[in-house]
């Protein structure tokens, strides 16, 4: 097998997001017409909550002239609202803008970044769930667009949200996954129990509907599902978010163990700087869809030297320095 697990060259993804027209905007226009026409009840009509959308109490039953003005105005409003619903305007959002990097086989590669910086989008591009608008992504030499099928055999993924049939038990969900991957079902059930036990998940819980289990427990089932199919490239999108410190440790240790014993390459996104420091061979910091740094945690920290308080910089300091989030946090009024 190749020595490069993942190669990502100039990957770009742009979403078109519907521009929602906020109802308040319409209401305030409506009200300003009412008050401009000398409607004494206009003030009340503008009270949020009393204005149910179509007819406000203040606009009701006043002079015929006012009613006509409002009627015409409302007609136009209704029309423009209908148009906005039928043909919503959309704005482009560049979630990943030209990211280039490669990951060596057996490496644990971390991606850190603020909310909405494009981490999950990048993971989805690699896992063949999104088509890139530009650039090329290869998993062990296979193109994620043209050789989707070959890539799918090699990967599996854990996402932040536990995506399961919540009425089904852990075992039923895992059997479903195993069958989709055509893993021997009896073997899969044994392996599943082993993995779950290893993650501190009681066997008796494996037969209860998942909706009765805590988020952390569900997350462990998600880890088990991903590992059940023996992926050579494991994509972990915030796998430990929502886990208690002990569970977090168990999952982290297991990731390290899998890398060492199964020769698995891991791509990991996280908001936990200590986790990144502990697990990752290299870390990329992504901000607004671009990598702003890529190095070993040690080099990243050394690059910053000392933090504001004169102590040795942590990965968190590096993160703040590169994404400018510390500044925004201390001056909330400047943030969005």
């Amino acid at each position, binding site marked *: 097998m190749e020595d490069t697990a993942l190669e990502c060259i100039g990957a770009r993804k742009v979403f078109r997001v519907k521009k929602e027209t906020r109802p308040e905007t319409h209401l305030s226009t409506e009200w300003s017409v009412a008050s401009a026409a000398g409607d004494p009840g206009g003030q009340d009509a503008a009270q949020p909550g009393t204005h149910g959308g179509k007819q406000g109490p203040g606009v009701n039953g006043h002079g015929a002239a006012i009613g006509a003005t409002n009627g015409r105005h409302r007609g136009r409003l209704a029309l423009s609202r209908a148009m906005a619903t039928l043909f919503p305007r959309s704005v482009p959002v560049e979630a990943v803008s030209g990211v280039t990097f490669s990951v060596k086989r057996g490496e644990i590669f971390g991606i850190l970044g603020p909310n909405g910086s494009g981490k999950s989008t990048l993971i989805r591009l690699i896992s063949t769930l999104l*088509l890139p608008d530009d650039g090329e992504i290869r998993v062990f030499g296979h193109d994620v667009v043209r050789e989707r099928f070959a890539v799918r055999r090699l990967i599996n993924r854990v996402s932040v949200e536990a995506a399961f049939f919540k009425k089904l038990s852990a075992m039923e969900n895992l059997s479903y996954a195993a069958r989709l991957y*055509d893993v021997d079902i009896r073997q899969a059930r044994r392996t599943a129990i082993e993995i779950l036990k290893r993650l501190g998940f009681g066997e008796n819980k494996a037969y209860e509907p998942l909706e009765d289990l805590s988020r952390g427990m569900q997350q462990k089932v998600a880890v088990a599902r991903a590992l059940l199919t023996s992926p050579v490239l494991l994509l972990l999108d915030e796998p430990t978010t929502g886990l208690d410190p002990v569970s977090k440790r168990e999952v982290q240790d297991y990731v390290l163990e899998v890398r060492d014993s199964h020769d698995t390459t891991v791509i990991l996104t996280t908001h936990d700087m200590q986790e990144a420091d502990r697990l990752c061979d290299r870390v990329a910091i992504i901000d607004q869809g671009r990598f702003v740094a890529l190095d070993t945690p040690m080099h990243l920290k050394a690059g910053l030297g000392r933090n504001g308080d004169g102590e040795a910089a942590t990965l968190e300091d590096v993160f703040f320095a590169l994404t400018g989030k510390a500044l925004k946090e201390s001056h909330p009024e400047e943030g969005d």
Partner: protein
Amino acid sequence: MIELARELRRSYALVERNFNLIRRYIGWEIVFLVYTVVNTLTIAFIGVNPATGGGGDRVLYLVVGALLWGFLSVLFHEVAESVQWERWEGTIEYSFMAPMKRLSYLGGVCLYAATYGAVRTVVVMLAVVALFKLDLGSANLGAALVVLLLSSLSFIGVGLMAAVLPLLSPEKGSQAAHILEAAILLVSGVYYEVSVLPGWLQPLSRLSPATYTLRAARAALLENASLRDIGGDLVLLLAIGVVLIPLGLKVFNWGELHAMRTGKLKRSG
């Protein structure tokens, strides 16, 4: 050959999963089944009601409509809603990320839908038989079964076309599928001859495979028609299936690519 067996095993994942889901939602399952039984019986009673000119073959006429529509609408529903259901649970990314052909995935959905629909229909049929004396003296059951098989193909085709809708528009897709189902119910002559429909609706009835299904099934069950007698309708049903299933698969693949381009597979996160 080995590859085929592998894909069939993958299809079975869908069947097992859905039957597991039924066990977990067993309360609702019973409620829906009882409702369908009662609904069918009510329709059968219309057939014996003297005020509506009941008697003779009318019960059988109505019951055939109710049973067939029950089966075909379940088939359509299960296929059309499969994607929507997975979107709602948030599992769709995981199902679609698996290294399996989409044909196997959808094949599994159809296999489940047909099995589930058949089981339900048999239960309803037993209830009808227990309460009504149906005269099957001039019924060609074999021909009726062939009608059922061929119409399943065409309904799977229609279902596949509808299954893609939630991939194109997460909210409106499912609504459109319901409207389509209602339109088919209206124009296909489930409980009446299509000739009673207003003139402008009648051309639509010709577009619905259910029209040919009901016409052929009634001919077989009420008039002892042979396969040759209903040959025209059978060929039409087969043709609709043969055209719509591959077309449905193509449309589905295209819809999936569209969803991958626009990011519509995921629900959140």
